[in-house]
């Protein structure tokens, strides 16, 4: 008789794997990518390819140098590359994008131990480093292709104060901005796909966008304009929901989203930068372990008396 395989229960596993989750995220990014191609033309395609390709190579290179197993199969590097590309202005020189993916993959992710160990969202750190290093290139915006034949610089909705852009312009992406962040409609479509496929829960996006809405309204700004412009949608749906750097519990996710929203508005309204989404998410990434600690799940069937006693100890 053949030897039997013996292992601890459970003997069956679900079909969901890390690479399948990442593949879903890539699929969810496709509508925004398509919109970017329509709006910004070939440059958007090249930029996304450069970022994804270089992210992949950095990941594989790190695996080889660190003598670790090949982790490119989990597709997380491709997701990081694509999201970083979405966060860059279309006119950015390609070599700067490669620097961005280096910071994202090598510095932020692999040096800390790879997927699951990074303290902050790699794409966010990549964007912020580029923003600090190449502020001029990172903040020069061009109008989408079909609106102006010549490449001209134009103000983004967050800087522009004269009501140049209508809500509809903002919603479908008829305004200058980063490659992937301009078309809210496509981003929301991707977000709905992720929620339906149970890749993300709605807690972070809803509390993030909701907080920006409420805060803007309370601060006397136009709330609809605020949530449709800049990187709020891209950040709330695709970057703040990164599993590794956001809290694990539902309660924690709501707190995390709300914190991102508040920080975004504070930076937008009262600080020097016109846009604050990436800083807000980075700061909330850093406090995630504390949110996790404060929102630990309460097991069912722990006597109430004991809970009080534990409280007293603290």
């Amino acid at each position, binding site marked *: 008789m*053949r030897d*039997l395989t013996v292992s601890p229960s459970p003997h069956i596993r679900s079909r969901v794997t890390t690479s399948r989750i990442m593949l879903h995220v890539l699929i969810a990014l496709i509508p925004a990518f398509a919109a970017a191609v329509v709006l910004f033309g070939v440059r958007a395609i090249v930029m996304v390819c450069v970022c994804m390709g270089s992210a992949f190579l950095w990941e594989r290179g790190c695996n080889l140098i660190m003598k670790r197993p090949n982790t490119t199969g989990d597709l997380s590097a491709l997701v990081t590359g694509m999201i970083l590309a979405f966060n860059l202005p279309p006119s950015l020189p390609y070599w700067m994008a490669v620097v961005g993916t280096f910071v994202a993959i090598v510095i932020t992710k692999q040096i800390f131990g790879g997927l699951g160990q990074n303290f902050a969202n790699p794409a966010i750190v990549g964007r912020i480093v580029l923003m600090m290093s190449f502020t001029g290139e990172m903040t020069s915006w061009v109008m989408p292709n079909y609106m102006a034949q010549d490449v001209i610089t134009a103000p983004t909705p967050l800087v522009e104060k004269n009501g140049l852009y209508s809500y509809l312009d903002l919603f479908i992406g008829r305004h200058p901005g980063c490659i992937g962040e301009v078309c809210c409609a496509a981003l929301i479509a991707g977000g709905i796909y992720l929620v339906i496929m149970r890749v993300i829960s709605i807690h972070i996006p809803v509390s993030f966008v909701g907080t920006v809405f409420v805060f803007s309204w309370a601060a006397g700004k136009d709330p609809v304009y605020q949530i449709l412009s800049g990187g709020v949608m891209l950040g709330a749906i695709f970057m703040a929901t990164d599993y590794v750097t956001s809290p*694990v519990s539902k309660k924690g996710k709501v707190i995390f989203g709300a914190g991102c929203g508040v920080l975004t508005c504070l930076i937008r309204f009262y600080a020097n930068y016109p846009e604050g989404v990436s800083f807000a998410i980075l700061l909330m990434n850093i406090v995630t372990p504390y949110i996790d600690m404060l929102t630990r799940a309460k097991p069912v069937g722990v006597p109430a008396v004991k809970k009080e006693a534990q409280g007293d100890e603290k």
Partner: protein
Amino acid sequence: MKLKGIFLDHKKNTAGSASVVLPTPKTVRIAMQQCAGAACDVLVKVGDEVLVGQKIGDSDKYMSVPVHSSVSGKVTGISELLQVSGRVCKCVDIETDGEQRYMPGLKAPQVSDKDSFCNAVRESGCCGLGGAGFPTHVKFGFDDTRFSVDTLVINAAECEPYLTSDHRTMLEDADSIFNGIACIKKYLGIKNVCIAIEKNKPDAIDLMRQKAQRAGADIRVTALSTRYPQGAEKVIVYNTTGRVVCEGQIPADVGVIVINVSTCAFIGQYMKTGVPLVSKRITVSGDAVASPCNVIVPIGTAFEDILWYGDCDPESIDKAIAGGPMMGTDLFDLRDPVCKTHSALLAFRHGGERERNRVQTACIRCGRCIEACPVGLMPTVLEKAFDKKDRQTLKKMKVSLCMNCGSCSYVCPAKRDLAEKNQLAKALLRT
């Protein structure tokens, strides 16, 4: 509010196959340790003739039930059996004569009150047939002055994939179930009865509802949502009565007694006929089994004899599981015998869908395990605490509440062995 759970593919491909009685095998091996508690001492010698229902093992410990011969024949040896728990127990090997002669004088037990009822239940060799194997007379013999039990929950959730033996019991032995309920109600003085069945067994729910209407108003049938693990004791108590069994408590602390539907059916049958627990209804399924079926087998039958009946080539098997795929234990030898607690025998081929996606990768903190845990634990945090041997966190995060349902490991996209780590952590805290 209901407790959380996960959706599993039911794969109940034997739900429609009526139970058949396995032809008496040539030999059986009856283990002396088949329930939770003390092992029995062997009461027979090599060369003795034994009859069906004859007591061949007993113990003077309270936490123990006697073992009976399931066949008629001759004792050929007393051997040792290595069990999954790692313990070794004695086994009585019997060569059958194929006549299945019953022990003379088997008749319905004389029962007048709780004590004599518990005694009769013990003598029947009855223990929890759902898998845990807790001696039923101990469960019934609760101290009336300490506990006031008002509800009996009949656990017919059968939430594991593949398993249909409880389902078939309900369809085929409904009268025994209600006789069992009547006896338990009468002698233990329990008022309410709740039969809890998962919604994926509508025919069983209908039948139980019909019978319950005739039997009395205080028996209700609850249809549970088909989320694993509905059949876990704490979960079923909460979902049927809304009472929470706290850490360190037993269901009797909140006035509930939970017994498996097959156990109940056996008690009902025993109270009528007096035939002790000598056979078991077992689901035979899995992708290596050509004709999946439900068979009634004598206790002590070798697993390979049952697989043979299900048209399964033992050479093709890579993995055989006693019980369901979520909580069952792997077999390491197909010649091992069936015990009272086994409700299924699953055999899987090499490769196939079971092995797909088992490569372990790093935790990505997706939180699916936390969503899945029916008792609200945080398996990913516990895993990290265990890896650091951090006893304090493990204690604080209540790893002791884990019942090893396996939901966390099932849903993990990184395929981490979270449930296994929880068991190791519990063992670590015990040392």
